[in-house]
């Protein structure tokens, strides 16, 4: 917002239990200011607010994350609440039944918290360290590439094509993740590369 106080900005000021004087400064009459001063402090006043975008559909509603702790200040941040961003032109603060329950996804019991490995024939996952998992992947990629990369076709044209390793990319990640992924995947010669746009 450039000129006017935004809808969000207004709610934040009015809701966060600011002193009567500043309410006066905002153009409230005394009676209203006195009334506002009685209102209990807004529960989320002590949280850190972060602008984000709903991760589900491509309406891409603006949302605000409320967390305890400030990531930007190097603190741990625990997500407490998510609500629609009233300043967002598309959703103007509203959310659908999916967006309204976003926190329940972030904090789902079935969120993954550590790398896991399943051995051939096993009926369970077992824990594995990041280092071990990543080394295993790098080894497998290199071995497969060294064994199966088609460097040149029958005509001798360099084709750098690897068809025995494939990659499906995520359509809820960012453009930046996408670009980092693109670079790594294509530099290996992988041609079987898609995202959810195919389904």
């Amino acid at each position, binding site marked *: 917002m450039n000129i006017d106080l935004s809808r969000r900005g207004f709610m934040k000021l009015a809701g966060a239990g600011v002193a009567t004087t500043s309410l006066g400064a905002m153009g409230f009459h005394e009676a209203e200011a006195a009334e506002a001063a009685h209102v209990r402090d807004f529960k989320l006043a002590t949280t850190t607010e972060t602008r984000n975008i709903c991760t589900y559909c491509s309406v891409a509603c603006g949302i605000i994350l409320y967390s305890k702790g400030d990531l930007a200040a190097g603190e741990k941040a625990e997500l407490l609440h998510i609500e629609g961003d009233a300043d967002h032109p598309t959703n103007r603060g509203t959310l659908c039944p999916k967006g309204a329950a976003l926190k329940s996804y972030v904090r789902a019991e079935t969120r*993954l918290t550590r790398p896991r490995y399943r051995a051939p024939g096993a009926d369970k996952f077992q824990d594995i360290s990041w280092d071990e998992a990543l080394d295993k992947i790098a080894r497998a990629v290199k071995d497969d590439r060294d064994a199966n990369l088609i460097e040149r076709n029958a005509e001798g044209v360099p084709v750098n094509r690897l068809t025995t390793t494939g990659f499906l990319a995520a*359509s809820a990640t960012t453009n*930046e993740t996408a*670009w980092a992924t693109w670079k790594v995947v294509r530099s*290996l010669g992988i041609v079987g590369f898609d995202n959810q746009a195919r389904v």
Partner: protein
Amino acid sequence: MTNSWTDIKNTDLVVIMGGNAAEAHPCGFKWVTEAKHHRGAKLIVVDPRFNRSASVADYYAPIRPGSDIAFLMGAIRWMIANDKIQWDYVRNYTNVSYLVRDDFGWQDGMFTGYDEEKRSYDQTSWEYQIGEDGYVLTDETLTHPRCVWNLLKAHVDIYTPEFVENVCGTPKDRFLKICEMIGETSSPTKTMTSMYALGWTQHSKGSQNIRGMAMLQLLLGNIGVPGGGMNALRGHSNIQGLTDVGLMSNLLPGYLSMPRETEPDFATYMSSRGNKPLRPNQMSYWQNYGKFMVSFMKSLWGDKATAGNGWGYDWLPKLDIPQYDAMRMFEMMTKGEVNLYFCQGFNALLSFPNRGKMTEAFSKLKLMVVMDPLETETASFWENHGIHNDVDSAAIRTEVLELPTTCFAEDEGATVNSGRWLQWHWAGATPPGEAKSDVWIMAQIYQRVRRLYAEEGGKAPEPILNLAWDYEDPEEPTAAELARELNGRALETLYDAADPTKVVLEKGKQLSGFGQMRDDGTTSGACWIYTGCFTEDGNNMARRDNADPSGMGVYQNWSFSWPANRRVLYNRASCDLDGKPWDPSRVLIEWNGEKWAGADIPDIAVTANPREVGPFIMNPEGTSRLFSRKLMRDGPFPTHMEPFESPIANPLNPEMRGNPVARMFQGDVAQLGDRTEFPFVATSYRLTEHFHYWTKHNHVNAVTQPEFFVEISEELAAERGIRKGGRVRVWSARGQVWAKAVVTKRIRPLTCDGQTVHVIGIPIHWGFKGAARKGFGPNTLGPFVGDANIETPEFKAFLVNIEPASEGVA
């Protein structure tokens, strides 16, 4: 979307066909409500089910799944017959007057050049007549028998209202009423928007469904205008971005294409791109292809890309077939031809058709790597869950690594909405446990593979060793670093081509637009359509000024919209041949005598004379195409094709099964079902309470829609002895599922080709992981065949059977 969510408020008529926006895109659908409320706009819904969008529509008509082309060609026929054509638009902004080769034709549902053996067309005849000057021959009088107008008229002639009723099951009076409503928007001051989604794409001829509507919109003059357009309501929050950045088997970033092995060097690759104009004065913007391509290669390989080595062309993978799309990869897996497969946030076991085949495919991998914030069925495809995943774990030898990733709340970067807005977001929570960002994981894999090549040597190490990776922390590039790379910068000081003393941009500065890109290696930029997103002014994707001075829903200073911050594509077409807006009450841009200006960024060179330069600047014609030449594999006009599994034969050609050029693997042909054994049409859909297979992990959403069900009509329930809420078994030639039966008035039997056709609706949201009850999805049942052009599976129309099932069996 050609337009944006907020632009929908400018419309007079919304047609939702091939989607269900009220259900699947609720907050975007609010703009339909806005248009209805404030402009008096009307809403038409055409769908097999009386769905949530239909419940708030002004007019609804049912349609048989998979018959949309007949409906749309019927609508075009009606517009032509009743002269509901925006003539000034059509004459000047489409290829209606262009002459087509004499040997092009259509007969018995097929175009000229079909080769049954190859299941493809020889497209030679699908082309314009080109004059000696290299330009297309035209007939402005539209009397020449070979002009597109007359070919189109002849092509749609068969799609009479009776034909439509017979094939689509849409009652004739409803079809005609809809034609009348649509026809009103042929006025230059009335417009219609098309909102569609997977209901149109998930067919073996999905691309042609969409083309059908695009052609109708062109005839009405509704493309490029505020409140108009073709609006694909995309699914995932960044499916647009992932496609823009080229994470597709046949793409490079910015819709540049992957090289083929028949293009052995850079010069050959370039020779078939960078189209020369087909009409005088046209921009044919892809003439700049080389600038975008070289800038991309500079981002990819850095200093290692030089003019001498074709900008590192040899290091790019080269295709030997059109594409290694996901379904082809799964087919190859079943044959033991794939060893290693990564699923990054993609629950493939539930997303692709013929789940039995998917399980078989994954069981033949050596190693599967899954990166996801959540437990997924894919990562656990080897786990036995009774009827919900009936596998023998011990027999599956695939190793699986499941890596925990961050989700949106814990990472930073941009996602692209359906209307092409790149919106930046920030992290507001600490990742749980040891979860890591996908960027970190990809960087780790890259660093480790790179180290192995540096230490051990190996096959073709150059592309790996030469990849540009000069991030401050190579172990974890930041979002800002990657975004700046996508935008591009000046690698040398850039001087004005016309005045070499004038500096355009100093060395090292971020480009401000793709117009600054060069093909001599002096600029970088990984994704040209994004240039402008992160300039010397800073991160434009993070802009949050929600002012809209024009009142047109443009929001020019909110985030960044590709390309060039333009909000409505083809907006030059919102004005007449003199550059005056068709509708003076809805102005996006206009010609002021010297240049184009207005609330939106003009989609044309700002000084382009309106009488000379056509609005469709990406096309060498400068116009849009009612006849699409060789650009689609299944024909230059849409023609009615039945689904591969259909309750009726194709009336145009009873011998034809499905789309005659859609790819079918041998084993899958044997798994197609027949209408005698599988008499009912199944169609998949989504629910407003759930997002794909994610929200079943949420307690809240799992409570609101806890259990898998299928939806059937009262008539079908009576016919099969199925009671409301009873348990049913649904099976196809590929698999079976058990579900609760929702018996409803929302689906009614249709009459097609003299028979009663029952439709069964199957929502997609259940599996065997998460907080909701275990269940199934339509992908257990669907056929393993995709769209002939882009390989999107045919989930919206296939055949099944249904019967009551006993309750206790699990």
